[in-house]
């Protein structure tokens, strides 16, 4: 840490506190109670609702099947249909995350290393779609994938197909829609890490005889794993909980837990089952998050 005078020094740690505030030219320890507002906020708006949600899923289940507290969970984990939905939720989230890495990394690299004075414009273009409603963006894809949409018209014009393909009934538009919505999070996460990599390290590798690909694989990529990890976590969690895109694209070809949760609230009003599904979704997300962090750490990069 650097003081206002420019000299590097380590703050004197107090056994009672790890929090610091800057006083007149030096750092002072502050009490733990500074985190109290944030802690209260988290407890009231996150922990309490979670506990209530769990309690509700069991209480309503008992009402439905007296003497048991596991009716909904039993159904979720024994009915092949619901197991298939849980699996599809995870596969979709992992798939979308992987596509975002593949699509996003080159753009992040271009942004940091080659965009130069255009980098502001590239960042604006990345962020601009986020300023539009997700529903508008999703409807845009529906127009493009429609029977008389741009893709079908183009494919027919160049003679690749004779009649329009029913894109909207398949999973492809849904995956593309999700990637479109989520890839900016991946790009910005990777770019922020790439920007901090000392370019001298890559130049040293090149001077020592490594080619472009070897330099990238041995130096740039490993050093940017933190960015990929952060982006992957963000994209995975957002994909895991998204339902608007899947509601409007894919024609029901992809069924995920968020879609079923929405349905329990909107159609059947079975709040207990919705609570049980949301708890399962949370646990699945946490398990995947844990695995991702383990994977990143095993690759030799410090975890978050």
């Amino acid at each position, binding site marked *: 840490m650097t003081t206002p005078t420019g000299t590097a020094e380590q703050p004197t740690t107090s056994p009672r506190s790890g929090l610091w505030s800057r006083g007149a030219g030096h750092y002072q320890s502050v009490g733990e109670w500074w985190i109290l507002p944030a802690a209260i906020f988290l407890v009231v708006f996150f922990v309490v609702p979670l506990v209530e949600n769990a309690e509700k899923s069991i209480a309503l289940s008992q009402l439905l099947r007296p003497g048991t507290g596991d009716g909904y969970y039993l159904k979720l984990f024994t009915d092949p*249909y619901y197991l298939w939905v849980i699996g599809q939720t995870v596969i979709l989230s992992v798939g979308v995350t992987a596509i975002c890495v593949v699509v996003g990394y080159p753009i992040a690299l271009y942004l940091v290393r080659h965009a130069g004075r255009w980098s502001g414009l590239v960042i604006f273009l990345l962020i601009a779609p986020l300023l539009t409603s997700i529903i508008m963006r999703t*409807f845009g894809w*529906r*127009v493009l994938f*429609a*029977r*008389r*949409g741009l893709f079908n018209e183009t494919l027919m014009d160049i003679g690749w197909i004779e009649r329009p393909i*029913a894109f*909207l*009934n398949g999973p492809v538009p849904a995956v593309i829609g999700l990637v479109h919505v989520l890839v900016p999070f991946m790009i910005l996460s990777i770019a922020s890490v790439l920007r901090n990599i000392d370019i001298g390290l890559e130049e040293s590798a090149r001077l020592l005889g490594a080619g472009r690909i070897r330099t990238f694989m041995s130096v740039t990529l490993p050093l940017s794993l933190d960015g990929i990890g952060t982006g992957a976590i963000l994209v995975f969690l957002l994909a895991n909980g998204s339902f608007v895109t899947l*509601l*409007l694209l894919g*024609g*029901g*070809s992809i*069924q995920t837990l968020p*879609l*079923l949760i*929405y*349905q329990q*609230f*909107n*159609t*059947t*009003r*079975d709040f207990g089952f919705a609570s049980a599904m949301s708890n399962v979704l949370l646990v699945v997300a946490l398990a995947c998050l844990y695995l991702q962090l383990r994977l990143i750490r095993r690759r030799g990069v410090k975890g978050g």
Partner: protein
Amino acid sequence: MKDRSILKGLDRRQVLAGLGAAATLPLMPRTALAADVKQITVTSYGGIWERAIRECFVTDFKARTGVDAEVLIGGPPQWISQIEANKDNPPIHVLVATPDSAAVAVKAGLVDPISVEKVPNLANVPQQFIDMALGHGAAFDYGAAGLAYNKDTVKNPPKSIKEFVERTIAGEWKAGLPTISYAPAPQAFVWSFADALGGGVENLDPFFAAMQKMRPNVVFWTGVTDFLNLMDAGEVDIGVYYDGRTWAHYDTGKTYIDFINPEEGGVMSPVCTMKVKNAPEIAWEYVNSMLAPGPQAEFAKILNYGVTNTQVQYDELRQKRITPWEKTRFPPNDRIGELLPAWTERWNKEIGA
């Protein structure tokens, strides 16, 4: 340094006093708050419906009472959940709901019983439209769910639901059908088709068998305006839809669209208006506006839906467009409500969410 605090000029004691006063607001008698009501919150579906609600009912209510009405867009299940979450101080004061949702609201104790004393215009509403809301409101308009189609691409339209199903399976057109997540779909689509194909509320097998065969030629829609977007984009040629909304779309210049009341009869699809329990008493006046002949006639003119006040005289065009209620089928709403979770699960497993 300049003090930018919003609390500038207030000492700690004043701030605490203010917070204390705010904390006691929920404890005050409701009548004290209701006496000074400046605005109530009412509900509406989206699209052309919202415009009609604002122009016909909100305008009349505001002119008569001086109280404004904020219009909340959405659907009955969502609104009922919002009211249930805060029964003592409901965020919604007048609920519009399909009969199945109205039954849920009544059974959950979320709405007040209606009477002519509270709503004078109720005197001119036939009893059957009050019974639909279980005496806790009344249907103020109705549509018929039949088939809307594109005259340019469907030259020889089907006359019945049965014919529509057979020709969809044959791949004569792309059909737009609602998903089960669309609130009125269980009555307007699932029950209607099961009934037309020889099944019924207790037997959906003919419906699901037909759906499996129709699926390759079907695009699902999730909301009322969604179907029109699909029609405009050329994504579907025909589908399950309402008479009123079809004509409203026609009137916007989309003259390619037409409506068929199938031989089996379109599905009676009324919308009820209900005052939410613990809402300010002035909300009854809004319900009264919704049942008044003047605003209802205007509503019918904009939406081309039938209305329920017997004093309303339709103009010539509306007489031609509005499906007479005698030519509709009344779905067994109560039983459908009971079976809905099972129907939804079967739909998910056999057709998709």
